[in-house]
Each structure stands twice: as structure tokens, then as C-alpha cells.
């Protein structure tokens, strides 16, 4: 009886897990299947999930600069995300160290203020940022996007890095200061090398947010040569000439880089967002 119950419980568990996982990834399977289908099959009612005849023409079309500006958008997205992530790591490390290790009046208020600011982004900043960016002559430049993304990710960068810095024994830093290192050297020679997982995580998190962002890019960028992938794709496919295979191929090629990067640091990301330090 007991073993029967166990078997039944296992069966229920595996069923539920399968259901959850399949529901979660089903749209991705559709994406892949459709990217490999011919146009006729993609528009057919009776078609299955998986193509009867696999074709790579959609991937070829998307990557062919004569037909599709994918590489232009990719380059813009990459430069924007990379520079944002790099700056986020530098500025975030400085700020997070200041919060984690240095004492000064107003520190607590700053820290709370940063988290509160997380709640006032997005559509609230739309009109004023557009006005400011235009007035500053930064309209339709990557710099406008980089600065915006840098700030909207700043609370999480500061939070994750700060949490990690606090797990480094303070005595280690004190000992090296007694040995004659100044604070900058302590940061550079002790804290940074020990914090590589957290720094990589923040880098990839910021990269991912910048790579995926749509709202500000759609408002601050107008010329095709400066478009990032999300707005580039949305404008190209807005005209309802459904070439689904091509849309799915472009979607996959846009998703894969960030998905792979995220998979690398997933466990650190989970740890960094919660109680600080990663638990593996």
C-alpha cells in the first residue's frame, strides 16, 4: 500500500512537472518549428508543430543584408548593451562599495532612495526624457539609450553588488589596509577579484535589460541605422505581410544571445537577488 502510494505520488509529481515545463516552453517550440517551416505550411490549419520539410531559407533571408537589416540592428543592440553593461559595472561597483563598506551621514537615506526610484521608471519618464534628450541634442543617438538603461538598471546593480561585497570578510580588507594598501587598492586588488561572479552577473543582467528594452528605444530612436533589435523588428513586421517563418527566425536569433548569457550566470543571479551571496 505504501509503495503504491509512493508510485502514485511520483506519477503525479512527474505529470505536474511535465505540464509546467511544457506550458512554459511551448511557445518556444512553436517559434523554432515555424522558423523551419515553408510559408505554405506556416499558414496551414492542419500543420503540426514540427515542419514536414525543414527549410533554412528564413534564417538565410534574415541574415542576408540585401534582404534584411538584421546585422545593423544587431550591431546597434550589441554596442548599446555592451557599453551600458560596462558602465553599469564600473559605476555600480563604486556605488555598491560605498554603500557596503564606507560610513557617512545620509548613507541609509541614499540606499532607500535608490530602491524607491525603481518604482518611478518606465512610462512615467517618457515625456520628460524625450523633451530633455531632444533639448540636449541627443535625440536618435545610442548615448541617449545608454544613459537611460544605465539608470533604470542602477538599483539592481547596486543591490546585487552590495549584497556580494558584504559577504567578503571585512577583516580581510582591514588587514590589507594595515599592510599599507589604501581603499582604492583594496577595492582593486582584493574586492574586485573576489567579486567576479557578482560582477559577471550584473554585467549580464544589464546587458539583457538593454538588449530587450522597447519603450525608450521606440521613443528616442528614429533612424533605421540607429535602431536596436526590438524596435527594428517591430517596425519591419508591423506591416502585415506575414512572413511568419522570417519573423520567428529573427525572434530566435534575437533571443539566443541573451538566453545563453543568462544561462551562464543563472545560479548567481538567483543568489544575488535574494539574501546575498550565492548558495550554488
Amino acid at each position, binding site marked *: 500500500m505504501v509503495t503504491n502510494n509512493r508510485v502514485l505520488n511520483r506519477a503525479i509529481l512527474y505529470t505536474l512537472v511535465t505540464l509546467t515545463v511544457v506550458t512554459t516552453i511551448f511557445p518556444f517550440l512553436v517559434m523554432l518549428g515555424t522558423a523551419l517551416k515553408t510559408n505554405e505550411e506556416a499558414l496551414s490549419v492542419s500543420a503540426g508543430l514540427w515542419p514536414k520539410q525543414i527549410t533554412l531559407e528564413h534564417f538565410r533571408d534574415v541574415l542576408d543584408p540585401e534582404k534584411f537589416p538584421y546585422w545593423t540592428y544587431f550591431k546597434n543592440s550589441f554596442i548599446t548593451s555592451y557599453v551600458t553593461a560596462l558602465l553599469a559595472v564600473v559605476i555600480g561597483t563604486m556605488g555598491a562599495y560605498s554603500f557596503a563598506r564606507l560610513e557617512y551621514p545620509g548613507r541609509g537615506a541614499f540606499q532607500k532612495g535608490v530602491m524607491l526610484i525603481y518604482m518611478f521608471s518606465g*512610462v512615467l519618464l517618457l515625456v*520628460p526624457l*524625450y523633451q530633455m534628450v531632444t533639448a540636449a541634442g541627443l535625440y536618435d543617438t545610442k548615448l541617449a539609450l545608454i544613459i537611460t538603461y544605465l539608470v533604470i538598471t542602477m538599483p539592481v546593480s547596486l543591490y546585487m553588488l552590495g549584497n556580494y561585497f558584504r559577504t567578503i570578510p571585512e577583516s580581510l580588507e582591514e588587514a590589507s589596509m594595515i599592510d599599507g594598501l589604501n581603499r582604492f587598492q583594496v577595492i582593486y586588488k582584493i574586492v574586485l577579484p573576489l567579486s567576479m561572479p557578482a560582477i559577471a552577473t550584473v554585467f549580464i543582467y544589464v546587458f539583457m535589460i538593454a538588449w530587450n528594452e522597447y519603450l525608450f528605444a521606440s521613443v528616442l530612436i528614429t533612424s533605421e541605422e540607429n535602431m536596436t533589435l526590438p524596435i527594428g523588428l517591430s517596425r519591419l*513586421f508591423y506591416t502585415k505581410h506575414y512572413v511568419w517563418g522570417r519573423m520567428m527566425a529573427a525572434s530566435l536569433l534575437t533571443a539566443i544571445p541573451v538566453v545563453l548569457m543568462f544561462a551562464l550566470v543563472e545560479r548567481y543571479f538567483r543568489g544575488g537577488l535574494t539574501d546575498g551571496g550565492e548558495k550554488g
Partner: protein
Amino acid sequence: MIGENSMTKQKKSRFKAQEERLGYLLIAPAFLLIAVVILYPVVYNIWLSFHKVSLNPKRPDIFIAFENYTALLSDPKFWDSLQVTLIYTVITVAGATLVGLGAALLLNKAFKGRALARTVILLPYVAPVISLVFVWQYMFNPVYGIVNVTLVDKLGWLGERVDWLDSATPALILVIIFDIWRLFPFSFMMILAKIQSIDTSLYEAAEMDGAGGWRKFWHITLPELQFVIGSLVILRFIWNFYKFDEIYLLTKQVPVVSVYAYETAFTTFDHGLAAAITATLFVLVMVFVLTAVRKVLKW
């Protein structure tokens, strides 16, 4: 080597002043950026909302006091959008949190392939919205989309094909399902991390007292999760209240407040009115934050 004791008072206070200065110096870039990109725009937005904003940057904006606000509050579209936003926000927040909790409890159990399942489940949260929107539009296409084909032709659960993308109620249902699907992984991730940190001896003690699975969940797990779930609900409520990209990209039939503000600003180009809309949103969220955040997160 200089020990603590041999340090003179003077040296100590000089060290302290140095540390303070360094503290300010290191936080200065982050603070400046936040001031320029968030604090100033929020204030500037309020200023704009009292003006008729000129489209030509060389022409001055004209002060019109509360005209934008009276126009806004007497516009039924605004009240409709507020209502749609509330429905959308309440259902998606509850849905994403509950599904996330369920998934976390499920994937906390031991089984083969657990690590892979935990990673794979995060896919919707990580992938770009634009990629997800296209495939959902394809799946929910009224004519050949797999959803209608399955629900109408194969299972017969629905009598006729539903126009998911272009009629109001189905479109609202679509964006709600989409958001829950896309964001439950985030709740899952946060809740799972907390569950893993619960002291197992609590469960062992409860088992000695003869507590079953349900009682353990109710008396141990849930109280431990209270803080993380509370934070998730509040943050998600704020974020979904402002939600723009996925709704706007999926369908033009769900007029939430952010879409209303976006179209006012960039389709009808009335930046003053758009500023009034977002300033009103700001006040609503501020009230929510000051009450809910203080009570639940005890800031």
C-alpha cells in the same frame, strides 16, 4: 605595523573624514545619473503637465494651469483606461504570484532533471518581449493559430473562432495570460530561493508532532514566505500598473493608461496632456507605495 591602540585620536578622525569623503565620491556618479535621469524628469514632468507644450523646441511652452488636468479628468477614455489597467494589474499580479508559488513548491521536490527544469522555466522571463510577442500573435491568430484550431476545431470547447488580437475582451484575456506566462518565472525564482533557505529542522520538528504536508505548508512555509511574496506583489503591482511594451506590441485593443499616455504623447503629440496623465499615475503610485510599502515591507 600600526595597531589600533597606537593610532592617535587625530589620526582616527582624519581617517574617518577621509572615509566619508571617499564614500560620497564613490556614490556620486550613480547619484548624479539618477538625479538627471529620474529625479529631475519626475519634477520636470509635473512642470510640463501645467503647460501647453510646444512641439517646436524653440517656441516657449505656455502656462495653462490646470487645463490639462481638467481635460484629463473629464475624458471618459482616461477613466476607462484606468479601469482596464486595474483589472489587468490585479489579475496578472495574483496570477503570476500564485503560479510562481505553485511552480516553486513543485520544483522544490526531488526528481530527476530538476536542475534543468528550474533553468528552462526561466526562458520566458529572459527572452526579449519582441520575440515572444511575435510567436504569441502567431499562436493566437484567429484563422490558422494553434489556439483557435485546438479549442474550436479539435476539442470543440469554443463554438466559434475567437478574434484574440482585434476585439476588446479576448485581447484583454490574451495580454493577461501572456503576462502571467512571461512573469511567473520571476516569482518562481524569488520564492524558490526563499524556500531553499528555510531551516529544515522546522519541518523535522513539525513531523515529530505529526503535522502533515498541508499543515507544514500553512504553518511553516507560508509564514516564512510572507515577506518575499509581499515584496513581489507590491513591486509587480507597480510595474504592471505602468506596463506598456508587451501590451502595445501584442494588440491595439487593450487601452491601459500607459498606452493612453504613449498615444497622447506620440500619436496626437500633446505632450502637456501626456505629462498630466503620467503625473497622475505618479501620484496614484506614490499613495500606493507610501501605504503598502510601509505596511508590508516596513521601510
